[in-house]
């Protein structure tokens, strides 16, 4: 295992200390409770928006804490859902009297831990609404299974919903917007390499020099299927087609498009994938009205990418364009 770390068990704690030092103007990091809280939290009469999940997906979620996005994030151990205590502490810290939205990615662990946290918060009379993101089209949606995973849409949703919350909108409206964004967004990912959980010390799987995994999540897991490595054009096609089909995107519609790196893929390759994505969508007369290319929701040092599309309307564009000032996303101020 080759990593820039000290001891595996200290990875999350030390990374949080580093984050705290770099972004002292934006966030407070409570190393003990393991939460990252917006500097000016709680913002009075604003809905508090929190999220959380395992570490190893940086900049998600801690990098999205700040003006116009999240009020707090709860990072768990690497690839492990945080515990209810963290979520409760974060909920308390951001409750400005207008209630708190929990943005939960659809993983059994995340869902259950957030559920317990919400129960505990309710016991303290803090109004909590949870919304679950489940945008990964690689996994079939079904009532009888754990369902689709929450992946790329989560990032874009946090931005849009955070902007709405910043206007002072009530909890129900903020939650509705979150559901709307989730319903109109889909993602799919692929990997060229596995990654290594620091405490595990070994790659999560082995992949041949000419193989790739299609339909991966964000936890270093193998995908839905293994395939022969092909060119960027074909990879983009493989990821984009199920998204377009599932969203039933039609000619004339506009989307917010994200090409996300899994952590170990250089930007130059992500731009190549975006170029292919643009070509594919142009061929279907779907226009990319807003876009984001880079490492936003990662799987440690895994090489690979994911594509996320969200159907846009004027309202979503407005909140996407609204100012944001977090460690990882910043514009308009």
């Amino acid at each position, binding site marked *: 295992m080759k990593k820039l770390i000290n001891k595996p068990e200290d990875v999350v704690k030390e990374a949080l200390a580093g984050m705290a030092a770099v972004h002292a103007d934006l966030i407070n990091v409570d190393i003990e409770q393991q939460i990252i809280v917006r500097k000016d939290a709680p913002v009075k009469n604003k809905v508090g928006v929190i999220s959380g999940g395992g570490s190893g997906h940086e900049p998600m979620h801690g990098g999205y804490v700040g003006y116009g996005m999240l009020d707090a994030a709860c990072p768990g151990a690497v690839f492990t*859902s945080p515990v*209810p205590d963290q979520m409760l502490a974060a909920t308390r810290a951001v409750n400005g009297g207008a209630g708190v939205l929990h943005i939960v990615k659809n993983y059994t662990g995340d869902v*259950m831990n957030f559920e317990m946290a919400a129960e505990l918060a309710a016991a303290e009379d803090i109004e909590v609404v949870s919304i679950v993101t489940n945008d990964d089209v690689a996994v*079939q949606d079904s009532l009888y*299974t754990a369902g689709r995973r929450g992946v790329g849409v989560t990032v874009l949703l946090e931005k849009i919903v955070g902007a709405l919350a910043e206007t002072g909108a009530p909890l129900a409206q903020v939650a509705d917007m979150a559901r709307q964004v989730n319903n109109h967004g889909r993602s799919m990912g692929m990997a060229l390499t596995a990654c290594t959980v620091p405490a595990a010390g070994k790659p999560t*799987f082995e992949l041949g020099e000419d193989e790739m995994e299609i339909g991966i*999540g964000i936890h270093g897991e193998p995908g*839905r299927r293994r395939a022969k490595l092909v060119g960027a054009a074909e990879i983009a096609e493989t990821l984009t087609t199920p998204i377009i089909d599932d969203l039933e995107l039609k000619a004339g519609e506009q989307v917010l498009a994200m090409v996300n790196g899994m952590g170990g893929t250089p930007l130059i390759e992500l731009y190549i994938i975006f170029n292919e994505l643009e070509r594919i969508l142009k061929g279907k007369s779907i226009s990319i009205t807003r876009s984001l290319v880079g490492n936003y929701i990662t799987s440690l040092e895994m090489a690979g990418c994911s594509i996320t599309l969200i159907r846009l309307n004027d309202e979503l564009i407005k909140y996407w364009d609204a100012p944001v000032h977090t460690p990882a996303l910043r514009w308009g101020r």
Partner: protein
Amino acid sequence: MPVTHEDILHWLQQSAQVLHEYSAFLTQLDSAIGDADHGINMDRGFTAVNAKLTGLSDADIGTMLKTVGTTLVSTVGGASGPLYGTAFLRAGMVSSGKQSLETSDLITLFDAALEGVKVRGKAQAGEKTMLDALIPAIEAGKQAAANQLSIAQVLQNMTAAAEAGMKNTIEMVATKGRASYLGERSVGHQDPGATSCWLILQAFSDTMTPDAAHE
């Protein structure tokens, strides 16, 4: 001989030790169909439990198990944290005030734990989860209890059934938990949670079987 307060203490210590020893193995199982953390998670949780045990030497069994539950909830995270946490919490709730457990108490305790896992995780038998070790274990326990076997033998039978159930998960297609994302590709791999469940039952059985610890 009923299960005493000391037996429970011993069982929990033993569980912590076994989960520590098997940590890499459980993580390796989770690496194949999950996210390579189950051993790390269980080890972290039971290390925390172990640290609390000294403070519990005077507590009743219910309090002990509830403390185990809250400790697991607060330290494990992932899917296994709420699931094992709820299991121990529920087990503790039905053992409130008890200083020892008869066979029937034990069955009640396990039934409560199972109910907790089911309510929390919304899974059922055959979905390739810890339930596929726990459910057959409890059935075997009830059978053994009906046959008036000793507590040690009840637990031995439960452990054997859990082991068989755990092995049965190899051929299952996962429909709950992370492994479900792999669909058909999950077949051929043993479920990590079913494995940790078997290890914990085995630790219990070893505790109650006088010579087992010295094997």
